């Protein structure tokens, strides 16, 4: 069996688990079952679920926040200030939601089965000029932030500005925005750190949730041996991913901040609590209300996430 896998961009920390999965699956089946990984050749990243639904390819990665209406159930994992502080926790929370019948039914509309998350650390903010040391200093700060994090920023008086990721570097260097919110690896790959003067170490306003899914029919059509090879490799692939992110990406991140002389802003617990109070509660309430209207067990999903993170 040969599967086509639709990813985008180029090979990076964010795709290491899929690369590892391909390696393991081929190994375990003696080359009988192979995954052909394509970076952007098969689909645009926002249309990967469409491609799965059509049956154009068998496996794909996407981010829930790209198109909330396509996958409302798993956007619960993108709510601000959930309190996730490690990739392992992010995996646990994601898998708890992925295994919930409501999420499976939600993705089932696309003929998709959730396989594994692509855990990202919490977003933080890189900026130019004087960094905001307190909540009140966010007032009027232009920041490139979208979706839930954009709303979180607006709640404390910052001015979220919309632009495509490829324009961000230039927009910050040229002063159109003063700050940018990304995960660390994206700050490095989009070059926002190059001219930055500050970085928030523990604001942790949230992150995006990017699952890897497979086409349900294709999954069912696998032989028992092939399915076993695939499913039994997920944990090892994720372990490889976490190891790679922590030991390659994050290892480069700290020294890079030092080398560039970027000021690291760390907020006190009281400051963070104030942030959470202003943002997290209202955002969660709004999410639950909106998604209950979609006939999702929204409260249940939210409680599940909070309980899993609290364990």
């Amino acid at each position, binding site marked *: 069996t040969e599967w*086509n896998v639709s990813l985008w961009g*180029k090979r990076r920390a964010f795709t290491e688990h899929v690369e590892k999965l391909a390696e393991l699956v081929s190994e375990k089946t003696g080359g009988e079952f192979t995954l052909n990984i*394509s970076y*952007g*050749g*098969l*689909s*645009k990243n*926002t*249309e990967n679920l*469409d*491609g799965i639904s*059509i*049956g*154009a390819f068998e496996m794909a990665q996407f981010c829930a926040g790209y198109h909330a209406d396509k996958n409302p159930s798993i956007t619960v994992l993108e709510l601000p200030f959930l309190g996730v502080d490690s990739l392992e926790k992010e995996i646990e929370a994601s898998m708890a939601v992925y295994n919930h019948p409501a999420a499976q039914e939600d993705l089932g509309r696309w003929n998709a089965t959730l396989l594994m998350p692509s855990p990202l650390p919490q977003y933080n903010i890189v900026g130019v000029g004087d960094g905001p040391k307190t909540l009140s200093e966010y007032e009027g700060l232009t920041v490139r932030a979208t979706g839930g994090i954009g709303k979180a920023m607006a709640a404390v008086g910052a001015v979220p500005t919309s*632009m*495509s990721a*490829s*324009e961000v570097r*230039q*927009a910050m*260097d*040229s*002063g*159109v925005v003063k700050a940018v919110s990304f995960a660390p690896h994206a700050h490095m790959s989009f070059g926002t750190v*190059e*001219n930055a003067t500050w970085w928030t170490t523990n604001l942790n306003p949230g992150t995006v949730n990017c699952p890897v899914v497979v086409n349900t029919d294709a999954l069912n059509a696998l032989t028992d041996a092939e399915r076993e090879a695939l499913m039994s490799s997920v944990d090892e692939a994720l372990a490889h991913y976490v190891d790679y992110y922590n030991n390659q990406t994050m290892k480069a991140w700290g020294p890079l901040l030092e080398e560039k002389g970027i000021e690291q802003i760390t907020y006190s617990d009281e400051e963070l609590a104030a942030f959470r109070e202003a943002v997290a509660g209202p955002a969660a309430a709004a999410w639950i209300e909106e998604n209950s209207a979609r006939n999702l067990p929204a409260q249940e999903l939210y409680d599940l996430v909070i309980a899993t993170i609290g364990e």
Partner: protein
Amino acid sequence: MDSIDIGIVVTSVMLVFVVLGMRVAFAAAGAGLAGLIWIFWAKKGYDPAQFTWALGVAVKTAGQVPHSKIASQALSLIPTFILIGYLAYYAGLTKALFEAAKRWVGWLPGGLAVSTVFATAGFAAVSGASVATSAVFARIAIPEMLKEGYDKRFAAGVVASAGTLASLIPPSAILVIYAIIVEQDVGMLLLAGFLPGAVSALIYGGLVVGMALVFPKFGPPVGGFSWKERFVSLPPALPILFVVVIIIFFIYNPFGGDAWGTPTEGGALGAFVVFCMALWRGMRWPQLRDALLETAKLSVMIFTIIWGVLIYVRFLGFANLPGAFADWISGLEQSPMLTLILILLAYAVLGMFMDAIGMLLLTLPVVYPAVIALNGGPDVTAADSAFGVSGVGCAIWFGIIVVKMAELCLITPPIGLNCFVVAGVRPDISVQDVFKGASPFFVADALTIATLIALPQIVLFLPGLLIG
């Protein structure tokens, strides 16, 4: 047949249809769709019972391309740049520019022709399309040159050739298209076009002066303008400068302060300034309606080729043809520079028969990855590369060269569109005359391209400032 063979067969059939006169956009989309059906059916072992499945998957895969690829912010620059060009006519900017250029540089040998080159370069800073630029100046500049006794072929050749400057000097629709296909920063490419465009204009200007010195019958200088007359001619042309400054400040602030916005906003704001100017100069709804219809027509023409070709590209992705071609090119046992020059020569031949935008869209999906691989890959440093430019640098540098190449083809027989346009505006001048008049500029362009290949710094200097 493996998927690469399918890729080659489908590509050949597409080229046959293009030669047969099928509209390029649909030939590409049709080839892409047929290729997708083939690939999906092959996956099922050509089982007749599975054909409808393969057809459905292929059609749905192709069917998502138009919307998903076109709904992009970067592409919005194309219609904006086209609109600016049309509005500029109504704003009276073209005549003002030519008049100012005449008073300032008319005293040079071949003065009116030199003025034409520089006025065109100035207009290029608001116009995004070559053909339209040549058409305008054929009406404004040729009558004046003939009145002063300029050689007819020479005058026509200058106008046809100078029009090509519009595609290098920003704004340029074709550079935006290139940036989108190769997924590079649009602002960076626009900025990169500026110096090569200016160098081109200077080479054209120098060539005209040289020719006028050697053959005085080509055209006399026009002098006798007082300094007062010169300065008086500037204000009407100033809006051009204003628009240029706006667009530049939206890409990059030369004084080190904050830029005013993104290139997307800059293009749109430039259009707004020209629009206000045109309103002030008396443009009303009937003229605006015409400008909007023309903009819509040219935009839809370009966008249709874009999504058509992108359906074909989607098929190439499933067939993995670009990867295979890149492997083949970078595996050739000859110097990378020789390969690059052969690729450019192939463009010169293709350009004799095809439109610039269609040609780039059809070939870049395969040629671009090959050129990048030839240079040493997308992440190569300048020091380790074959052409002495980094991965990103190579993307920009090759873009400017290939666009200049495509523009050169607008003045080569048999289908040099700019020459036909000039001959069309002036019924008294035959197409052959225009081609003859443009032939020295062909040599100048070849020189320019050689210079750009030898000195990538000319292309990469301004984008380098942006990267810091």
